């Protein structure tokens, strides 16, 4: 019995520790979000939050839903597999509200050379021109229609 004679302060110490552990658990309950650990060592809700961002590029399927005439023009041309927004830019807002959001008119002088200006690093099979020598300053769409860029007269001649 002598061994426990002065043990009172030890019990108090244990009490303090238990209170500390309890406080830790309570604080932890407050601070750790419920979804933490749902899939792994991170907040599971972060996935849904990142996925909730609005889109800016509508995707070509959305465009083609309305602009079937353009799809018809494109389908046999060299640009058949170039998606709409590759040239026209992000237009999800236009797709959501076609009446009030209208796309800007594009400038072929800027747009065409982005891809077709000659550069030694481009694949050799890709059609390239030195724009300064190619058109005498004429706008590209004087001869080429961007949705089906082959020149009609040339196409006829080849037949």
């Amino acid at each position, binding site marked *: 019995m002598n061994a426990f004679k002065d043990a009172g302060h030890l019990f108090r110490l244990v009490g303090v520790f238990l209170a500390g552990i309890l406080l830790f658990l309570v604080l932890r309950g407050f601070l750790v979000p419920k979804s933490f650990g749902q899939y792994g060592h991170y907040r599971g809700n972060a996935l849904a939050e990142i996925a909730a961002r609005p889109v800016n590029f509508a995707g070509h399927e959305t465009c083609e839903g309305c602009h079937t005439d353009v799809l018809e023009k494109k389908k046999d041309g060299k640009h058949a597999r170039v998606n709409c927004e590759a040239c026209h830019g992000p237009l999800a807002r236009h797709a959501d509200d076609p009446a009030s959001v209208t796309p800007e008119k594009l400038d072929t002088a800027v747009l065409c050379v982005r891809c077709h200006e*000659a550069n030694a690093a481009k694949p050799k099979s890709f059609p390239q021109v030195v724009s300064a020598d190619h058109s005498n300053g004429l706008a590209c769409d004087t001869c080429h229609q961007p949705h089906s860029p082959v020149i009609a007269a040339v196409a006829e001649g080849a037949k």
Partner: protein
Amino acid sequence: MNLTRRHLLLLLPAAGAAWKYVLAGTPESSPNYKLTEHWWGMLIDLTKCIGCGNCVRACQAENEVPDGYFRTWVERYHVTDYDIENPQVDSPDGGKHGFPAAKDASGKNFFVPKLCNHCAESPCTQVCPVGATFVSPDGVVLVDKQYCLGCRYCVQACPYGCRFINPKTNTAEKCTLCYHRITKGLTTACCESCPTGARQLADLKNPNDPIHAFLKTHSVQVLKPYMATHAKVFYNGLDGSVR
């Protein structure tokens, strides 16, 4: 009522439990999307890349990437004859506005688009001290902005240089593989705007994805395979000089 210490001790855990429900927030928002049915990656066919910079601009428009920072960018390589260990690489403004004419058209010139490789064994997620970055169950490496401290460990850990600290939020940022798009059935902004089809989003768990046929018939490589990161961005026609 007199609030004693005993009452307080009983009340606190109850309040904690209640607060947990408040913190739980919004549950899964795309009901038709099943995390376990996808394993995302990308295919980049270098034989098709023309260095137009569409992907870089599209990414910045889609994800509000600050000017001068890049979640994807395009590099131009120049290799003289046999000297593949010393390529000259340039990437003016990340290739955002295309590339000027090559200084030296001799030798070998080509473009290499880069982005997060969405490694299955990603070094960047392993070093995060707070669980703010992770590989999602569908194979996309993401950053939880609310949890990120901005300590920059992950920026240093990425062997591909794909991360940066957003100067506005002071948190780590990177390619999300347009997670907000792919979970809605769309392709990424860079793939959507690539005019030549050099970039293709790939779902490696979908047996009907065209990537499987492509991988069977082409010599495909990942960047820095010796880092054993299990990268999921596959390059076709990758030159040995590419770092």
